[in-house]
């Protein structure tokens, strides 16, 4: 097995609702979708964001879109209207998640 970063195998877009950050993580193909569905877990996501995500993380798989809907509570420093962060609406939380690594077989080829 070897490791690749999500940024090399997925697309992503993130947004907000109050203090909830949501990330849509879209696999570039079906095989990658099966990998992220298994390996991108709420525990791993929460650990990845350290003290930036203080609440629960829920992940909804969307098989029809080969995507995971990742919902993170207490994740935006209070929410758009209250936060001190520059990224008030969490638009870059997807990019932040995309640093995360997952394991892939040795013969796995990163899609272009």
């Amino acid at each position, binding site marked *: 097995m070897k490791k690749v970063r999500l940024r090399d195998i997925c697309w992503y877009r993130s947004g907000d*609702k*109050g203090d909830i950050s949501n990330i849509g993580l*879209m696999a570039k193909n079906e095989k990658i979708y099966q990998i992220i569905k298994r390996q991108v877990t709420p525990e791993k996501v929460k650990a990845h964001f350290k003290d930036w995500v203080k609440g629960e993380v*829920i992940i909804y798989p969307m098989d029809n*879109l080969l995507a995971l809907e990742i919902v993170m509570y207490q994740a935006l420093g209070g929410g758009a*209207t209250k936060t001190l962060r520059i990224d008030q609406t969490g638009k870059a939380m997807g990019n*932040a998640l995309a*640093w995360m690594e997952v394991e892939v077989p040795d013969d796995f080829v990163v899609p272009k």
Partner: protein
Amino acid sequence: MKKVRVGAGSSGWPDYKDSAWDVAEHGDVDYIAFDHLAELTMAILQAQRARDPRRGYIPDVIPLMRGLLPIWKKKDKHFKMVSNGGGANPVRCAEEVFKIVKDLNLGGMKIGIVTGDEIPLSRIDELRAQGYKFKSLDTGEEDIDRIRDKLLCAYVYIGADKIIEALEGGADLVLTGRASDNSLYVGPFMHALGWKYEDAYWDRIGAGVIVGHLLECSSWSAGTCSNLWEEAEYPEGNPGFPIAEMDETGECVITKTATSGGLIRELTLKEHLVYEVHDPHNYIMPDGIADITTIKLEQIGKDRVRISKLGDAPRGKKRPDTLKLCLAYNDGYISEEMMVISGPKVLKMAERITEFIHRRLKHLNLKPREVLIQLIGFNSLQGPTVPVPDPEHEPPELGFRVAFKCDTEAEARECRVECGHLAWAAAGVGTAFTNPPGIRPVYALWPTLIPRDAVPLQLEIKEVK
């Protein structure tokens, strides 16, 4: 088979006015809808109206309409318009639009004005006296006792009911306050395709809610804010806005004009279907609850993507009995300061400034509620997820931003000047300071639910001959 073409006209304040005009001119649309309101906008608009009763609507509506209405006339007044740009003052907004109609000598026009979304604070007290509780959807707190004295305004995300009624009444333009973004699109679908709030139609309304979601962020479904940003071209500098061709069964093609830039791809739509939906099986909107896992996307041509039903599962469920009520309240002040620091050893220098700021706050006995330090060019957007570079690969310079949240404006200013601005000199050699943005009040939001029947809405259709 009945079909309707509905185009996006705006997704915020501001948005590309010329893109809306392009949809009107070249999109062959029957309806254009305009969303101008973000979560916080109503609180801002209401504060404007409190200072001047002639204000409180989205000012951009006026230049937008000044460009749009001549196209509307040229198209034989064929398309109808739906806008929530009335904000906290739809009545005044309508009066201003009528002035344009007269100025430009456009002939008659009917405007439907929808009100009732704003709940006066006295009414909130009345409802509480009757036993209603406003439990926070964010924190789970049972009621608003803690913030009652700090409340600024309360408004309800309303559905398409009155928009449909206005269109049935012949309105050319429907102006609302806080109609939900989604309902601005669902209203025209339901009116044009004969869908009702009845069991036979929840599946199709679900499809309408999903497509409404794709349209309500305008260019965001058409290549802006996209992972495909390298492929999205804007030869004329004008992003395209999406247009939905919806049939009466809820099947739809999303497209855009050839005269605009951007892209309509499976991916650009998928990006938006995963954006801010939370539980995709229960995307709750005032007109219905959609299940986004029940549809499929298929590229059928350049800038054309079909959205169809994937299996037998219904695309929607009955609309909820409650509506979302948002209470806005004052919650202190935010001040910030930014300097730019130079390497070598920028990360080390940033650590030293951070330490200095905290020591100085203590020294001066300043106690902001929160302090946040972010390094622009390193971790300001991606926080603790960013890998720390080895010293050989540190950025040559960094923006150093410190922000304070305080109870009073005076404290926020003192923190900024004493511990923000005056930190620059202690930072080290090669530091430049910038002009910070003004101190801003925090309008916090308390989202909750209110029964539909506690929110009576009004529609008035006004006509200028």
